[in-house]
């Protein structure tokens, strides 16, 4: 039943668009953060889910984007909208270098090289005090209003719509990518890189390209976070965030684009609900992860589509 799926999409889209009307301010803050993290997790899915490049330093993209955007807003007086996209672009350009070096290795070594880069940035963010503010980070990042009437974007609600637009735009770009011939080569690399090389594709170039795009989108998410939170600190570059975003992708369902967004929302919701309910939230959090791996390996999106399909086969039993 295609109708049901479309109906669900329309309801979700309307709910997200109408959210600022009905939700209290603190819930809007949570939702905006979930949207930003969703974009971040989705960017990793391009690498992890479609190309099986396990970035273990994806916080590098987020933190770099956040610092770049924060710096631009603080020191150049660039308007919010431009700073966000410029920071995303800068992250993507930086990632060409990262991708070039990291793709020398494969498998676990690739993951560890991405980790090394992230930790290197983490170390730099501590020491290059004149630019990054050291252990204090960048504080008081403004949402500068631009000259073209984008003033609405700097309000709380406006910023939510900006983040939502970035998420939807990012999703459309990613979906177009994975459906294109480029995406087919990425899946080829995921399934069997040697065979893909033998078919005449320069897989390393494709890998560098996907790293750059993925980091660029992750940087965009980070660039949204800096003016959202008003600060950028070293936490955003720490490996713990890299681990968390990987978990979001896996819990949501890797290789589905939409799954990681759900994973990020789930992660945020769990963290918030559990920490309100019990002080020992990390304990239950950990147990939930373990349960997910054991009983729902396909992730949230896999579970959801599984249910839909079950309903479908019940509605039109095969004759």
């Amino acid at each position: 039943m295609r109708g049901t799926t479309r109906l669900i999409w329309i309801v979700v889209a309307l709910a997200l668009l109408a959210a600022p009307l009905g939700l209290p301010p603190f819930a809007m803050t949570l939702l905006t953060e979930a949207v930003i993290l969703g974009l971040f997790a989705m960017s990793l899915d391009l690498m992890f889910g479609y190309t099986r490049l396990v970035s273990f330093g994806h916080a590098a993209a987020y933190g770099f984007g956040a610092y770049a955007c924060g710096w631009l807003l603080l020191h150049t007086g660039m308007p919010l909208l431009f700073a966000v996209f410029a920071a995303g672009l800068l992250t993507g350009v930086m990632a060409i270098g990262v991708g070039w070096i990291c793709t020398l290795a494969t498998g676990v070594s690739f993951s560890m090289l991405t980790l090394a880069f992230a930790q290197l940035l983490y170390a730099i963010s501590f020491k290059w005090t004149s630019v990054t503010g050291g252990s204090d980070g960048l504080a008081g990042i403004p949402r500068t209003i631009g000259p073209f009437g984008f003033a609405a974007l700097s309000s709380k609600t406006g910023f939510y719509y900006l983040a939502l637009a970035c998420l939807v735009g990012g999703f459309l770009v990613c979906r177009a990518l994975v459906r294109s011939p480029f995406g087919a080569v990425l899946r080829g690399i995921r399934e069997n890189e040697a065979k893909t090389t033998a078919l005449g594709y320069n897989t390393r170039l494709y890998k560098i390209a996907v790293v750059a795009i993925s980091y660029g989108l992750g940087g965009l998410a980070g660039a949204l976070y800096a003016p959202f939170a008003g600060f950028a600190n070293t936490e955003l570059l720490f490996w713990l965030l890299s681990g968390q975003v990987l978990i979001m992708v896996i819990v949501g369902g890797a290789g589905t684009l939409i799954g990681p967004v759900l994973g990020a929302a789930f992660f945020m919701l769990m963290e918030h609900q559990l920490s309100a309910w019990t002080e020992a939230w990390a304990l239950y959090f950990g147990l939930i992860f373990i349960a997910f791996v054991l009983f729902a390996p396909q992730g949230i999106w896999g579970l959801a589509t599984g249910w839909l399909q079950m309903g479908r086969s019940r509605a039109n039993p095969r004759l």
Partner: protein
Amino acid sequence: MSTLALLLSQFVDALSQSALLFFLGVGLTLIFGLMRIVNFAHGALYMLGAFVGYSLGTWSGNYWLALAGAPLLVGLFGTAFEFSILRRLYRRDAHAFLMVTFGLALVVGEAVRLTWGSDALKVAAPPVLSGVVFLLDEPFPVYRLFLAATGIVVAVAIWQFLERSRLGLLIRATSQNADMANALGVDIKLIRSCVFGIGCGLAALGGVLAAPLVTASNGMAATVIIDAFVIVIIGGMGSFLGSLIGALLIGFVQVFGNYYAPDFALAFMYLVMLAVLVVRPGGLLGKEA
């Protein structure tokens, strides 16, 4: 302080640091070599070792009992975890392990916080080890020397265990070709449980030994796990000798880097790893990755 004495004291410092790193790295690499899994909970088990050691020490008043008991208990815990949960996942993707052990790290970290509280606990070294000795007329803590010596003893013991004992032989065989070992009648499930337990026990040993130096705290897991990863990657995943070389390299880079260029010390370790991986993607002694 004469230059020579300074260098010597730094040398022993670096050696003791390497010993601590080695306990972590060797467990991680043994587990990886055998099961192809990256144990994310290794840092948490290291921390658990420190706290269990603290409790055993205060309960019995005997440091040596804590030193022997904590690795044993944590090792048993690791075996139980492998037996009950990891065992179900061997047919699955590698990222299943990443997630399960990440979950375990969270659970253990939180359980430690609930049991022992959030304050750092001071663990005293026994009187025999808490004094100083004079090396080239300069005072030097005995405990550092003890750590370095323990590191050497444990390294030799593991090496002999892997090379000479029957279990060591079976571990090497399973590590090289698990299916073939299984076909020859080796109970590889049992071997995996054993090795996971041994690896966790070694991490705990590192934790107990580090406790008098750095105090047992909730934060100790997050910092060491990355150090351990770096060591294993530099040495080559699954290589025993590699983890030894990696630990020495990183131990020396950390201690000398902290002294001579403290601003860049944090970055040095990763630069070394980058350099090694660019030249040899599989690590110094690893198979080509």
